[in-house]
């Protein structure tokens, strides 16, 4: 198991202090539960207190921009951490890239202005293969995966290739920054994505070769190991991960599987595990990690707000919505 040390860097004391004060303004689990029990009107009233409006996506966009600006400002004291704030932008750029690759003439989803690549540059990247516009330092990697995504052309193939591009570039930047915590977070994230795909395709009774197309090789789980798992029962797969940090995710999924032959709980458990990693940073007084923990925490907040509002609009029951709500950062 990968071990890690926190940076414990006192250079970010101001930032950590600010984050601790901001944490008090985040939405807690009991508030989310209350929202799930209320009507849409009462939800809009509640979220207004936290700076979100009826137009949720627009207010999330605003909040994301504010959070990104804050994080960039707080970590600017150390140059090797600068690339980490780029991860945030990279995520938005990949979202735009996927959207554009899927339907270049009339993108289904609106262009996300949070990324650092403009709409015009995006067209240049895809149409004229000017991959250095995507990432100056790693234009080769970017070029390879964008070309692969265009070759695959199916929505799931494009998603897979661009997600791989995002994860590869992220892990490269994280290694350069030497922040162990983020390295562990992203490795576990990739591993869980691989396990999620493995369980999904196994459930769908697809061949291992099909799963192979969706395998992320930048994680710590080798393909041969996953091939072995593919032949095992879902309840037995959980036992193979007993020594992993994320063992509880598999254990709870296996329990749910035995109970009602359902794998839906994996996604919630995966997110809850990643949130628990983010929550660790709340216990730190110094270091750059609490700043990233807050960033992850805000993402969970957006996700929970979407779950509740979409759930209410789709007229799901309170229990169904509560089941889907992720463990909060505060």
């Amino acid at each position, binding site marked *: 198991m990968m071990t890690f040390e926190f940076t414990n860097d*006192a250079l970010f*004391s101001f930032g*950590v202090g600010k984050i601790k*004060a901001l944490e008090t303004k985040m939405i807690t689990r009991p508030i989310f539960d209350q929202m799930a029990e209320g009507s849409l009107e009462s939800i809009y009233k509640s979220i207004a207190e936290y700076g979100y409006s009826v137009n949720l996506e627009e207010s999330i966009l605003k909040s994301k921009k504010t959070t990104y600006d804050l994080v960039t400002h707080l970590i600017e004291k150390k140059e090797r951490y600068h690339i980490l704030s780029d991860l945030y932008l990279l995520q938005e750029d990949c979202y735009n890239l996927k959207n554009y690759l899927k339907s270049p003439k009339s993108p289904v989803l609106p262009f996300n202005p949070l990324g650092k690549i403009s709409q015009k540059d995006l067209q240049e990247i895809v149409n004229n293969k000017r991959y250095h516009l995507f990432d100056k330092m790693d234009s080769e990697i970017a070029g390879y995966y964008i070309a692969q995504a265009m070759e695959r052309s199916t929505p799931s193939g494009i998603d897979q290739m661009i997600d791989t591009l995002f994860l590869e570039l992220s892990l490269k930047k994280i290694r350069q920054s030497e922040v162990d915590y983020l390295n562990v977070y992203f490795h576990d994230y990739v591993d869980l994505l691989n396990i999620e795909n493995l369980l999904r395709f196994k459930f769908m009774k697809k061949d291992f070769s099909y799963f192979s197309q969706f395998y992320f090789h930048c994680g710590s789980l080798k393909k041969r190991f996953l091939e072995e798992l593919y032949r095992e029962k879902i309840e037995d797969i959980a036992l193979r991960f007993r020594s992993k940090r994320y063992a509880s995710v598999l254990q709870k999924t296996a329990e749910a599987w035995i109970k009602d032959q359902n794998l839906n709980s994996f996604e919630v458990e995966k997110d809850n595990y990643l949130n628990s990693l983010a929550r660790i940073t709340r216990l730190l007084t110094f270091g750059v990690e609490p700043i990233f923990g807050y960033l992850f925490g805000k993402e969970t907040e957006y996700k929970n707000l979407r779950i509740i509002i979409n759930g209410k609009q789709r007229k799901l029951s309170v229990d169904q919505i509560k089941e889907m709500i992720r463990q909060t950062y505060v």
Partner: protein
Amino acid sequence: MTIGLFIAGMGIFISVVLAGIGSAVGIGLAGQVAAGVMSEDPKNFGKYLMLIALPGTQGIYGFVIGFLVIMKLGILTGTVPSLSIAQGLNVFAAAAPIGFAGLVSAIHQGKVCAAGIEMAAKQPSDVGKALVMGVFVEFYAVLGLLISFFLVWFGINL
């Protein structure tokens, strides 16, 4: 200047400068965290003030011992004493405890106070508990001060 007097001077230097460095670092840590918290929540400045100031006491203790040594040596009266090496070492050993205890305790107290400010940012009513934790660290600086005080007051015979 004799070597003995130089060594005694080093004792004064250590008590004042090391304890002062410790306090500066400690206040720096607590102060930066408090500034971060107050950038979002400016109304609680009064609550954090004691926690910011607490690591500053070691610097004062170091200064007090340094001043006592100067008085004991009679430097303020204008008569520079002639000290043997043994007497110089005697003064050095008397002044050193607060220097080292002050340096280490102030830095750690700064960390405790910084954590206390972060705790108080979430639960302002718990600021008293944070202060108590900081005072525990202070206890060891006070022990250093007492030892230096007794050694300077009773242990230096010129």
